[in-house]
């Protein structure tokens, strides 16, 4: 049996719970577009005989009514983890695809200006010399074509180096971002620990934590492991980046990038154990990291991989340069120039970066003749044979065609991987926001519900009031 005013107190808890529910709705609507915001819900419970719940609107035990147990954060941790993994992959495939496009742009084929056409012109110019061995004009055309081939190879090699340099700069920037996020995460960890210790609502801190983790996992292969209180430890590969228990009183570890060696290591982690917390985590080993996810992994691959990165394509281009130099020089050695002397090397250098027409090599040094040993003649047979070398097995032309095919294939695969991965990531994001995002329609319904609940509770109080009015003012008067 309730006391005289028990009903009013009971209805009062209803007013309070409805009013708190409205606050939560308001919070959700306010943050409908806040990045990383996870929707919240007021968790109510009938307060019949329940006591000792540390919340504001708890009712006295035994009085009945409603109590707000907690404000829950309605996220799906499985989807959160999945989203981070997919974002890491997405960032890697998108970055790879962009870098492959940059590498591909170095080889503008098929076109009238690419190396293929220049090589065709070069071999045809040999044929021109074969037709008119003593014509200075024909020899000039050949030397022009040779210079063009060499300088195009030089500039292609330079462009590949530019791609490499810009990837290195981007990796540097990514690592700066990672370091700043690791430091922020450490601070958030600290705030969460303090907040939880003081019994405060840390939902917004948890949102911040998740946003930072999202960013980290799209940059490096960051693996979070969550502690009971909501703080988080993060490792990159096998190296510790943010170790909460380890760093009480300290800070996050940092990635350090050595651009000359394209190597990234984890540094920091001076043990600052504060009793009674034991130091259980080993400090970073300092050995170079191989990223397996995030945009950093794409930059690292392009910078260092001899199977898919700039060094690989640079190597293939060097083979083209070497083939053109070796073939031409061997052909030269088999003939005699316009002065009757044995042919000398036309090209120096065997890499794309260094290949050049031999200094001092002039038109008359082209060894067109096969017979003019000592006595210059109009024989063009050596030039005639040389002109056919472009179609030989292992010729520069064929090597270059293979190179273009290889880079085209790689770039196409990178684009396809990126498109596929984006679709997956988008689908997971959709699921994640479906679980944790704010739906304004839903909030409007909740708004109506809480509004009506508030009105109904008021109505109960009004009714009790009029009953008490009857009892106090009109009974026995």
């Amino acid at each position, binding site marked *: 049996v309730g006391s005289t005013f028990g009903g009013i107190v009971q209805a009062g808890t209803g007013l309070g719970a409805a009013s708190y529910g409205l606050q939560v709705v308001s919070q959700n609507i306010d943050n409908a*577009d806040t990045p990383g915001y996870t929707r919240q819900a007021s968790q109510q419970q009938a307060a019949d005989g329940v006591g000792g719940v540390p919340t504001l609107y708890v009712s006295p035990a035994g009085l009945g009514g409603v109590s707000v147990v907690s404000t829950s954060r309605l996220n799906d941790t499985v989807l959160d983890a999945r989203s981070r993994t997919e974002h890491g992959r997405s960032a890697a495939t998108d970055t790879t695809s962009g870098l492959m*496009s940059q590498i*591909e*742009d170095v*080889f503008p*084929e*098929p076109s009238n200006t690419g190396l*293929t056409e220049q*090589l*065709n*012109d070069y*071999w*045809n110019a040999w*044929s*021109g010399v*074969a*037709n*008119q*061995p*003593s014509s200075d004009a024909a020899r000039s055309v050949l030397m022009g074509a040779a210079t063009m081939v060499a300088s195009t190879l030089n500039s292609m090699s330079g462009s590949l180096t530019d791609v490499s340099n810009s990837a290195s700069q981007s990796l540097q920037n990514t690592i700066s971002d990672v370091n700043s996020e690791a430091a922020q995460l450490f601070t958030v960890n600290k705030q969460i620990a303090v907040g939880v210790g003081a019994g405060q609502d840390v939902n917004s801190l948890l949102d911040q934590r998740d946003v930072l983790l999202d960013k980290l996992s799209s940059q490096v292969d960051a693996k979070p492991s969550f502690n009971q209180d909501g703080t988080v430890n993060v490792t990159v590969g096998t190296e510790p980046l943010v170790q909460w228990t380890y760093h009480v009183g300290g800070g996050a570890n940092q990635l350090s990038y050595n651009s000359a060696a394209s190597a990234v290591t984890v540094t920091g982690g001076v043990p600052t154990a504060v009793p009674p917390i034991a130091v259980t985590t080993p400090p970073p080993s300092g050995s170079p990291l191989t990223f397996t996810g995030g945009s950093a992994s794409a930059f690292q691959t392009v910078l260092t991989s001899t199977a898919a990165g700039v060094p690989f394509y640079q190597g293939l281009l060097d083979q083209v340069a070497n083939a053109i130099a070796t073939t031409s020089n061997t052909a030269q050695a088999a003939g005699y120039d316009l002065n009757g002397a044995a042919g000398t090397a036309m090209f120096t250098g065997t890499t794309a970066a260094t290949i050049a027409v031999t200094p001092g090599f002039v038109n008359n040094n082209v060894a067109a*003749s096969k*017979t*003019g040993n000592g006595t*210059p*003649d*109009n*024989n*063009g*047979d050596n030039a*005639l044979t040389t002109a*056919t070398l*472009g*179609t030989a097995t292992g010729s520069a032309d064929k090597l*270059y*065609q*293979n190179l*273009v*095919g290889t*880079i*085209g294939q790689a*770039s*196409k695969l990178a684009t396809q991987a990126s*498109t596929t991965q*984006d*679709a997956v990531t*988008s689908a997971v*994001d*959709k*699921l994640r*926001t*479906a679980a944790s*995002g*704010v*739906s*304004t*329609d*839903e909030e*409007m*319904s909740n708004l*109506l519900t809480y509004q009506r609940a508030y009105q109904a509770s008021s109505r109960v109080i009004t009714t009790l009031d009029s009953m008490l009015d009857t009892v106090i003012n009109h009974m026995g008067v």
Partner: protein
Amino acid sequence: MIRVTDGATKYGSLYGMQSANSRLQSLTEQMSTGRQITKPSDDPSNTVRALQLRGDVKRNTQYTNNSQDAIGWMSTSDSAYTQIVSMAQKARTLVVQGLNSGSSTGTSNTAIADEIHSIRESILQMSNTTYNGRPVFGGNTTNSVAYQEDPTTGNIYFVGDNTDVNRQVGDNTVVTINQQAQTVFGPQSTTPSAPGNDIFSLLTGLEDALRGTGTRVGLPLTGNDLNSIDAAVKQISSQQAVEGATYNRVTATQAAQSTTNLALTSELSDIQDVDLAAQAVAVSTANVTYQAALQTTASIRQMSLLDFLK
């Protein structure tokens, strides 16, 4: 039932709009460049094929140029051959005339001898015919003439060389476009002091026989002289036939090259060029898709329960 939130709708429609837009953009790029392959990754295998075809087309064009040069050379030598044969036949007629007149007056023999002398000069001039600055009977010599007459001895000696001049007129097809002078005119002398055993020495012999001078004092024309000049004419004509055969071969090759070039160019175009009609349809379809994505996004995201709450 899955919750549909504003964020989820946003991701869905954003992804749809972006993919529709990117497809439209790539189609527009192909349309405006006229190429289906604007970069290797558009179609790696066809890119390589296109590069090979471009090489083939270029090489074929060069072969056509080489053939043209060969044909020019051979046309020049052909007309020289024709004139030389006609002169040599004229010399034969004069020999017959000289044989027939036999004991006739020295005056008519001298006239015949003078005419044979001028034929020798003409043949010398014809044998030095040049193409592009090179004597067509001089092999690979760098001299501007093949034969020279020594002003004191009157001997005609060879200053060219007996080598082949070759032209590449197709893959694995190298043709020799000249005939060596020693084969055409007979074994030459290469010094001014000695006569050779070629047509020029033969003509000098005939002239001497008619005049009764030089090596033919007291040795007038005989049937052997007629046989010699016949053999010389036959040899020159047979070499002209060799040249004619090569000429025909190169002309045929050149005709085949233009057919090949047409086929190669058309295959190249099939691979790398855009089919404008099909592309135009694809572009407008992509455009409609993109507009639809924009339109639905705009109208769906306008609606909310807020619109209906009073």
